[in-house]
């Protein structure tokens, strides 16, 4: 019988006050995450939240679950290690678009295809905020408000959900920070779905991208009654995606990766093998 813990979002918040800029969408993501954690009916010590580097990667400090504020772009391999060593834990990974899709882009591809049972939240603000506003991998090519790219990058942006689908993620969703209840639902669904779940959360950076305040008017829910269950169907839908469709976009059925944990040899056996 499952015991109802009756925990609230407040039970998952730490005493550390966020130092994000006022107006940052990450506040609402934190609210969504703690509300989702309260709904998962798991104790704080049964959850690990792993992050990389960047404004959004500070999020473990603001929760009271197990946290690991890792190395830039390396949150996913750390999280995979945690999950494979402790499959009993609910593992959530969090970070930004730069951390996850540029510095950690290679890890992202392999995390998608490896399909370890964990949930990855990318708080996408299309800018490097912590270093004062440079173009990130999801920045549109004509954004020219950075001194580093005064004429824009001229490079097509990475499209995170299409990339995740092509690379093999088993659950793909997109939310908007301004609708934190919906983001909470996506997180719960992602955690409960077996395998690697990827959730892109459009999270405005009002300091370096004030125009992102308009995202509230641009987001729209998916018109799909049920999420695509095959890659081909999801691809067809995403072909017309304007980047602002929210909801669960793909829910696949690949078996999560979990190596056989049975002990096959002792340390002494391995040493003998190396010696021979």
């Amino acid at each position, binding site marked *: 019988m499952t015991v109802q813990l009756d925990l609230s979002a407040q039970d998952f918040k730490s005493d550390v006050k966020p130092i994000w800029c*006022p*107006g940052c*969408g990450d506040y609402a993501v934190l609210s969504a995450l703690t509300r989702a954690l309260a709904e998962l009916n798991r104790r704080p010590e049964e959850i690990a939240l792993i992050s990389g580097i960047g404004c959004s990667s500070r999020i473990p400090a603001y929760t009271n679950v197990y946290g690991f504020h890792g190395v830039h772009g390396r949150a996913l391999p750390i999280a995979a290690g945690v999950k494979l060593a402790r499959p009993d834990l609910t593992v959530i990974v969090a970070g930004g678009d730069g951390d996850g899709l540029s510095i950690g882009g290679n890890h992202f591809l392999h995390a998608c295809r490896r399909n370890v049972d964990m949930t990855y939240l990318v708080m996408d603000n299309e800018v490097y905020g912590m270093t004062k*506003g440079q173009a990130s991998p999801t920045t549109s090519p004509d954004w020219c408000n950075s001194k580093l790219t005064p004429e824009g990058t001229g490079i097509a942006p990475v499209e995170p959900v299409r990339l995740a689908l092509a690379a093999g993620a088993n659950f793909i969703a997109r939310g908007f*920070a301004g609708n934190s209840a919906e983001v909470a639902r996506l997180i719960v669904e992602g955690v409960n779905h077996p395998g690697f779940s990827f959730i892109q959360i459009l999270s405005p950076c009002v300091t370096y991208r004030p125009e992102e305040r308009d995202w509230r008017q641009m987001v729209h829910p998916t018109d799909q009654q049920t999420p695509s269950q095959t890659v081909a169907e999801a691809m067809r839908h995403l072909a017309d995606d304007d980047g602002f469709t929210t909801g669960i976009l793909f829910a696949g059925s690949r078996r999560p990766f979990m190596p056989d944990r049975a002990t096959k040899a002792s340390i002494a056996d391995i040493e003998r093998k190396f010696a021979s």
Partner: protein
Amino acid sequence: MSEVALFLAHAVALEAEAAERYDELADAMEVHNNRHVAAMFRKQAHYSRLHLAEVMETAKDIALPKLKPWDYQWRTPEGPESAPVERTHYLMTPYHCVHMALQNERRGHQYYADMARTATDPEVRRLADEFAAEEAGHVALLEQMALSVKEPEPDWDQDLDPPVVSD
């Protein structure tokens, strides 16, 4: 689940979420040393909690349903009185703060006015009408307050050395 219990569960969440959001904004303003606006947000959180206590008093003999965050049937993406996070700025002034609170109260009023018009249960209509009248009072107070705050210069958000996260 009775319609009255569902309605009151929404009313509780409306005020609780508004208070929580105002507190978050106050914390954020304190971090950025915008103390005047922080104090104003803190006061709004206090008022939201007073209203929450009133709703709880109304609901004290009714078993309220425990809804998931996404089960609330708002007409807005979040609770109607929750300030939109992205509408704040570390350099915002009392003018912005008052106008933001005014917009929040107007959405709250609209929500209850709509419920008073459309609910099928007469008790819900009565309660919604009562709550809408209270919200109208808050709107009037904030409209008065809005007259007394000075509109900032157009370049109020210009900062030659914008913030960077620091530990």
